[in-house]
């Protein structure tokens, strides 16, 4: 099995998506939103961004299924372990 690298255009699109999602998170913070809606939205955006980094920047999408699964599993686990106490906080 061979690993292939991203085309430059795809890499650039992923970077632009990361920038756009970062600006979205910032905007949500600036406008002072809070509560479970904000927590779920911002956390989901953060984990999706991290997933993009794992797949497209770390180049684990193709050719490294074990490491991709390990890092993706880490993100899911961390997401749950962060979300639970925020949910319990009564949001």
């Amino acid at each position, binding site marked *: 099995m061979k*690993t292939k*690298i991203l085309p430059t255009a795809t890499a650039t699109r992923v970077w632009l998506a990361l920038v756009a999602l970062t600006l979205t998170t910032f905007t949500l913070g600036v406008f002072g939103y809070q509560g479970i809606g904000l927590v779920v939205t911002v956390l989901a955006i953060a984990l999706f961004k991290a997933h993009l980094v794992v797949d497209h920047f770390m*180049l684990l999408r193709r050719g490294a299924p074990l*490491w991709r699964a390990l890092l993706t599993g880490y993100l899911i686990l961390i997401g749950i372990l962060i979300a639970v106490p925020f949910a319990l906080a009564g949001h």
Partner: protein
Amino acid sequence: MSLPSENTADSALPTPSGPPGDLAIWFFILAELLAFGVFFVAYAFTRLNNIELFDTYQRLLDTRTGLINTLALVTSSYFALRAVIAIRHGRSLHCARWLWGAIGLGGLFVVVKLFEFSVHTQGGVTLSTNAFYMFYLSLTFFHFMHVLMGMVILGVVAWKAGHGGYSAREHTGVETGAAYWHMVDLVWLILFPLVYVMR
């Protein structure tokens, strides 16, 4: 013979199966992620018993510096990827330039973070001020040290790339350094919303 274009999609040179770079760095990355993960979960559970305190002091943080630093690291990580793409096409000088760019943006992160730390220090904030600042300062300083280490690693790789030390066939060092740098970026992508935004 002309070099292949970096825009030729998946026709780039293939590499052996497994993750890019030295396999050892991936165990290191996993260990680092687990360490940060413990910090993140501890933050969330400690906040559970100090919600008002955490929300109050979190509002005092400057989200704009968090935004600047997130954009700097995300873009820096993209530059590191471009360096990998360049060297896989045998373009050593392009690779070195992308890496120096990545280091420059890492430098921007460092400057902004030092500014933030100095503001807190002048305000008399320390680790023992309260639970929120204990986590905020510990987490961000721990990550800050990783940024510095990543810049040193990328600096060594960039210097070597600039002197023809890597090629399209042998570029493990570039991929290894880039993988570490992406980890530093990935951690910040969770740290920023958790500590600066979520409440």
